[in-house]
């Protein structure tokens, strides 16, 4: 009995303190949940830097609704279990919206905690399961795997008319889901999958599996993993004298892909949403320039930009609703926000938090080591 009483008193004091803090501070708290260390450290750090840059830009202009934006970062190390801890911490810090996480697994592990706390979450996670719960707090800022898979299958069958297709993924949630979806969609269009296998990300030596694939005489090898492995796969294909085309999923789209593959990069195909520097969006150019100036490097990948769009849309919605009530902001984002000019294209959301509209493209890396669009809707 005493324990319960004590609990209530403490809880009351805690709430009181929280609300006082919120009123007196005059700040809007934004959380970043990202892998700052670990395997995806470069992506996570880039997202964190980008969010802080946007916050600084807003604060320079006098903040938002007259309040300054304060960013709280939590490192989930790319592990589901740490993600749950992070989610609780950010909720405790009193953030109203969270950017992250980079990986689908971590985003999903944290999703229900943000939902229960009524904290908005926007993630680039592409796993289809992310929107299945129908949480009103969740907004995907990238396009889902399913859209990319459908586009990839079309590119394979309708445009390139591949006859013998080999597909590789790594063990990550994202990569397995994407590759499975691609294989499924290819089969749906009557394509012929001759080989499907997995690599261990970071293993560097992919010659055994590639030699095996060679014996199936494919005319294309699809890789649904990350550029760190994709670049090496392309290089080792060349070294083993494999003449098949290489098509990489979205996460192969990174400047390092070309550096890793060297001259072998020529002729590789990549499937992704439009690149910021290929688009006429002023916001994109401006943002990339600002990022370059602030950090003396470019963002790690397109995923940073997706997250930036999620953040910008939330901040815009806060301004429009003149409110920090997450319910109101979410309502606005679901129903009123249409064609918001994003860095990665127009932004709007369906009721389940899925980003509407996707504009995938297939690029070929030419002998000038630049991207050339070869197929689009």
């Amino acid at each position, binding site marked *: 009995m005493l*324990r319960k009483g*004590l*609990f209530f008193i*403490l809880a009351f004091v*805690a709430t009181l303190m929280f609300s006082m803090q919120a009123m007196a501070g005059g700040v809007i708290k934004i959380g970043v949940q990202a892998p*700052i*260390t670990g395997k995806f450290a470069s992506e996570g750090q880039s997202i964190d830097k980008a969010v802080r840059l946007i916050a600084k830009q807003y604060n320079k202009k006098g903040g938002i609704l007259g309040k300054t934006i304060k960013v709280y*970062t*939590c*490192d989930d190390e790319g*592990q*589901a*279990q740490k993600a*749950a*801890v992070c989610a*609780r*911490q950010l*909720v*405790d810090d009193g953030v109203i919206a969270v950017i992250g996480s980079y990986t689908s*697994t971590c985003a*999903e*592990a944290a999703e*229900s905690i943000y939902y229960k706390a009524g904290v908005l979450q926007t993630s680039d996670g592409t*796993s289809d*399961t992310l929107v299945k719960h129908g949480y009103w707090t969740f907004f995907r800022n990238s396009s889902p795997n399913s859209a990319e898979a459908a586009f990839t299958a079309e590119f394979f069958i309708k445009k390139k008319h591949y006859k013998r297709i080999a597909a590789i993924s790594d*063990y*990550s*949630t994202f990569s*397995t889901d994407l590759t499975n979806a691609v294989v499924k969609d290819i089969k749906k269009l009557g394509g012929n999958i001759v080989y499907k296998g997995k690599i261990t990300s970071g293993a560097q030596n992919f010659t055994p599996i590639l030699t095996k694939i060679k014996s199936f005489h494919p005319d294309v090898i699809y890789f649904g993993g990350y550029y760190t492995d994709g670049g090496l796969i392309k290089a080792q294909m060349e070294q083993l004298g494999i003449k098949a085309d290489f098509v990489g999923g979205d996460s192969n789209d990174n400047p390092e892909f070309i550096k890793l593959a060297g001259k072998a990069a020529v002729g590789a195909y990549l499937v992704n949403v439009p690149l910021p520097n290929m688009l006429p969006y002023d916001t994109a150019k401006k943002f990339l320039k600002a990022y370059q100036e602030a950090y003396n490097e470019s963002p790690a990948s397109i995923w940073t930009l997706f997250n930036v769009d999620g953040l910008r849309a939330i901040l815009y919605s806060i301004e429009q609703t003149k409110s920090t009530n997450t319910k109101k902001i979410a309502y606005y984002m679901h129903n009123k926000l249409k064609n918001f000019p994003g860095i990665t294209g127009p932004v709007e959301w369906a009721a389940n938090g899925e980003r509407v509209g996707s504009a995938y493209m297939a690029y070929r890396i030419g002998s000038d080591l630049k991207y050339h669009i070869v197929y689009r809707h």
Partner: protein
Amino acid sequence: MDNKKNILYGVFFLVLIILPFILNSRWESVATTFLIYSTVALSQDIVLGRAGMFDMGHAIFFGLGAYSTAILNTVYGVPILLTIPVAIILPLIAGILLSAPIVHLRGDYLLVTTIGFNIVFTQALKNNVFGFTGGPNGIFGIASPSIFGYSLSSQTAVYFMAFILLLITLFVIRNLETSKIGRALHYINEDSLASECAGINTRFYRLFSFGLSAAIAGLAGTVFAVQFSAVSPEAFNFIQSVLFFTIVLVGGPSSVEGVLLGTFFMFVLPEMFRQFAEARYLIFGIAMILIMIWRPKGIWPAKFGRIPKYFFKD
């Protein structure tokens, strides 16, 4: 001296009981995981510290328990509390079966083999064996346990589940320490040839310690699965085993206080220094080396026997 220890434990338990009411939800979550990890580390200590076998694959049994609960609950809809017997028995059997062919191995060879087991285990989880481990994703949406229709879904409820788990473990270990088995393990650890000559069935006791520690780790796995309502292969990989292994050695093998301190040092401290995200593991590595140099037997080494203090003085 015993009295002092009892008071110390009394204070420790009191703090643990009050803790969830003063911590915010993030630190409550850390405290819950601390209790679970302490349990796993204590169970690892039965094999590593007490029986003296270099087991670096303990996350397997922790994972088996967690996955048993997760699969039974999400696939077959078994209530959490009813999954507990499976989450104990399955790791127990696995512990005995896996250790049976290897307990006779010399220290480092045993260590290597258990690493091997662990890697095969996580690979099997990732490859989605039998189609119900959820592959690299793991399994999401594990329900909360309920007693008499009352759902124990709050964080504080989970905290106290973990607390009870630790109490049970401490009780088991206390009994083990004072029992024939505990003494036998201690002899085997000190000198296995001599103990065999004295008529102790070393093989039996070694298997026993593996089985017991696997069972405890499995039970801890259930609470872990409930806390995060999710399990994934990364939580039970070889690196996690290294963590439990290090906890025991940094804290002090076969010392309950040491293992608890070790868990605090290896798990809670890194959580506290999250703001130094990038540098924290570097500093941590330095700390591990320094502790081993200054206190090679751990922060709080075990004292064996009940030899009166005056025995050592003059």
